[in-house]
């Protein structure tokens, strides 16, 4: 089915999110929509899916003008969407989720679950998915949940499929599998719109590339275009994608973690007997597939985990079992994995967010009073220093784009007197321009002598930033290797294979 958007315009108040967007997606084509966060990609797709009504322009399917009052209309017309944040009911089974919204009932309103299960099996078989129709969706790994979304779209016989940032939550392996699925769908003659801001993926599968910036189409590119060209189109200037850093100059040992074990609520070991050390002026990257204990490890470093054993010493002082407050005061800076949940208060202004973890004493608080003049002065200064793009220091955190939100978190943490800096997924879900900025600041922090721990599931980022790489698998560190370790080796380690050849790794693990 051929999809054509003509002059789509969507305004929110006086803000134009989409400005006369034209787009043609041919059958059997993967059309990439590339753009920074906030460029208007998701808005455009929500217009296409009937979630928003366009203020101007029209949507054509096979040259027929369509009117979508809601997602139901769009689905009936043959448009399917795989959302970035899955629209699934966690407590329902796969089959129940797939039929949700299109339930077919038999006698006395009893759902035809047998047919639904068969449908899931049929589609799974066709694409080689291994999805159990009776599994509870909440129990499935993220990658499988995404397949459920795909099955859901296909069960409605969607001829146009929209993937909205589908790889943001996937591991590298899952991403590769998704790419294969998309190619398979293309081979069946379906039209695919693929929204992303990851350049590598674009070049891998795209047949056509359209770049959106600030609500407007700024250019089309061939899949053969270089990363630098695409990035420049996206952000409107040339972007430095590689991280420039001098070789590390490690100094004295600052952090020593020994035999750290973290139990989850059910008493299962999510971090299992982890030991490593960290010296001044080096970046240790913790690589691994999402959910292998990295989150819990970083939280344990900040005192956010309750059931911990082992030892964490910072400059010789034990911090395991201390309160978060004490650990922050000891000079640990922390960028949480989920900044919206743990890093910022959406309803607070930038200025308030910048003093969030410093509300207990001077200079922000004197005699129980928030020093508002100082707070605002500080915020004004940091807003400039960290290039936080907002209406002002009183803009709410919720009004900022992901990249600017992350800059607020970074500004807050890096402006304290740090002894250790821990950043979990510091560039997740932020645009290319901001990633460059974040990386630069992290290297600058290292060069200032502060040891840095960065957790990332992006291998590119790990390799670019790290001086040493620790790979985690099922709660254990399977090895600590130098940053020049080949990607294939790292990939194998992420799959749980111990890296025994490297003597340094062996040494570090036992240290």
């Amino acid at each position, binding site marked *: 089915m051929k999809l054509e958007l003509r002059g789509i315009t969507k305004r*929110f*108040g*006086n*803000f*134009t*999110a989409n400005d006369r967007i034209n787009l043609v997606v041919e059958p059997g084509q993967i059309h990439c929509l590339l753009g920074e*966060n*906030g460029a*208007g990609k*998701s*808005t455009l797709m*929500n217009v296409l899916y009937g*979630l*928003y*009504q366009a203020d101007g322009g029209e949507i054509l399917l096979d040259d027929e003008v369509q009117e979508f009052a809601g997602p139901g209309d769009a689905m009936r017309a043959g448009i399917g969407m795989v*959302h970035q*944040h*899955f*629209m699934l009911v*966690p407590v329902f089974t796969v089959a129940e989720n797939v039929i949700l919204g299109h339930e077919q009932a038999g006698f006395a309103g009893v759902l035809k679950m047998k047919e639904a299960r068969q449908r899931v099996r049929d589609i799974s078989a066709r694409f080689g998915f291994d999805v159990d129709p009776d599994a509870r*969706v*909440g129990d499935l790994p993220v990658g499988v*949940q995404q397949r459920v979304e795909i099955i859901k779209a296909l069960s409605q016989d969607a001829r146009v499929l929209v993937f909205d940032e589908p790889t943001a*939550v996937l591991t590298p392996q899952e991403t590769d599998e998704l790419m294969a699925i998309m190619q398979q769908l293309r081979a069946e003659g379906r039209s695919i719109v693929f929204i992303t801001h990851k350049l590598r993926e674009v070049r891998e599968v795209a047949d056509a590339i359209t770049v959106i910036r600030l609500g407007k189409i700024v250019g089309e590119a061939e899949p053969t275009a270089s990363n630098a060209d695409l990035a420049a189109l996206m952000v409107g200037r040339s972007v430095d994608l590689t991280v420039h850093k001098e070789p590390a100059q490690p100094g004295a040992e600052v952090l020593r973690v020994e035999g750290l074990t973290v139990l989850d609520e059910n008493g299962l070991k999510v971090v299992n007997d982890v030991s490593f050390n960290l010296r001044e002026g080096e970046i240790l990257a913790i690589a691994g597939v*999402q*959910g292998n204990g990295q989150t819990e490890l970083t939280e344990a470093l900040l005192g956010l985990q309750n059931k911990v054993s082992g030892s964490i010493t910072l400059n010789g002082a034990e911090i395991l079992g201390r*309160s*978060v*407050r004490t*650990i*922050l*005061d000891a000079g640990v800076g*922390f960028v*949480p994995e989920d900044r919206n*949940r*743990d*890093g*910022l*208060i*959406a*309803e*607070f*202004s930038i200025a*308030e967010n910048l*003093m*969030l*973890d410093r*509300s*207990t004493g001077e200079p922000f*608080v004197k005699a*129980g*009073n*928030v020093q*508002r003049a100082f707070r605002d002065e500080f915020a004004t200064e940091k807003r400039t220093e960290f290039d936080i793009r907002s209406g002002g220091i*009183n803009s*709410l955190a*919720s*009004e*900022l*784009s992901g990249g600017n939100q992350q800059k607020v978190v970074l500004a807050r943490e890096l402006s304290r007197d740090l002894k250790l800096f821990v950043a979990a997924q510091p560039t997740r879900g932020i645009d290319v321009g901001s990633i460059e900025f974040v990386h630069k600041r992290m290297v600058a922090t290292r060069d200032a002598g502060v040891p840095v721990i960065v957790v990332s599931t992006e291998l590119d980022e790990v390799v670019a930033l790290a001086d040493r790489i620790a790979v985690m698998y099922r709660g254990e560190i399977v090895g600590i290797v130098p940053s020049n370790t080949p990607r294939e080796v790292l990939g194998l380690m992420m799959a749980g294979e111990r890296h025994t050849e490297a003597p340094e790794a062996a040494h570090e693990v036992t240290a």
Partner: protein
Amino acid sequence: MNPENEAEQPATRAERRRQEAEHAHEIEEAVVAALETEPVPSEAVSAPVGGAPVAAAAATATATKTAAPAEATPGEEEPASNRVLREIMNGPVVLSFLAVLIAFIIGGIMIALTNDEVQETAGYFFAQPGDFFGAVWTAVSGAYGSLFQGAVYNFGKDDFATGIRPLTDTLTYATPLIAAGLGVGLAFRVGLFNIGGRGQMLVAAAAAGWVGFSFPMPMWIHLPVAILAGLAAGAIWGGIVGFLKARTGAHEVILTIMLNYIAFYLISFMLRTPGLLQAPGSVNPKSPAILESAVLPLILGPNYKLHLGFIIVAVATAGVWWLLNRSSTGFRFRAVGTNPNAALVAGVNVKNTYVWAMALAGGLVGLAGVMQILGTTPDGMTSGIDAGIGFDAITVALLGRSRPWGIFAAGILFGAFKAGGFAMQASEGVSVDIVGVVQSLIVLFIAAPPLIRAIFFIPAPDGKLTRRPLRRNSKAVSA
């Protein structure tokens, strides 16, 4: 307490207490019922509060934007005048005002519909429509006129001193409402739904009353001690809730409801037991009268009921304002109230915050109990002394959007309803229940801003009239 007034309508007074007690019970039952069907009632109810802007200064500029979709950052090229106008129109103050207005209009319709003369003239509407509209006008204007005269200024009196008395009555009624509203509103700001106002008021009134009638002391020491005893009792009663929530994870709605029952039956028992709170030689479940030295002095002389409590409550309002908007403790309170996860990561001890916030909230609600026993009814305490204020306080806090001065204003409005409602019933024969309907409608409209926008054709903050972005509202499966 003006003895003349007290003698004037003893029957009405008793009747009102009975009504209010019933009212209180109904709310409790409704909440319990809601709990059974709705897994997290507090979020649903407090949503309009949580969504409201935090910084009072930026009040108008904020709430409007949080609803904007993720991809739509407000453009800078937007004409300032348009933006300001839209923000004002969608600002909490204007919406609250419009909610009050529309509630009065609906109340007026009800007054007209229930009026005998209106019904009669409606019978020959097509013959003489003028009669009908005349009757409607007479009924509605008479009712609201007497409401005004009963609550603000009585034009029937000759001199200003007597004419203004209704306003002082309003402020007297408002005093405990504001105090309790502050307690509920403070808890809201910390993300807690304090419906334990009744229990906190009862224990506070009992403690203040016990000090007030048991220990003769000079006034300058007796009154402060009695007030502090009440505050402490309320704070402990609220603090228990915070403590249990922090330690066991129990939901504060269930805890506060149960503590309401415990307080009510415990105080009832004590009031029936000689040697505890019961007046010696009496068989009624009532405490002795408060000693003169512990009664809140009348601040405008014996002709007015207004007592020192109003000043205390005004100071408390300023104090809560300072706490929430200027102090570091309040900063952490608000952080916990809007995003406890981020607060935890920022080193805030969230559990302790719950305990302290509930203790403070309980203390403030307790202040309302103190006002009741040492100001409104110093002739002795019954188990109905809370007069439903603990529940009206929820309404007051919602109307005031959990902002201290908003609560202060909302408390005065509700005080006016109380003062004027009876005047309306007495002079116009309009049931005082209409006032209750209007009060409830106000909050209903405040809780549903889209309704107000639809009625007054105000565009929604994100430029759409109806549909909100679905992605924000739906719960996605998390990894």
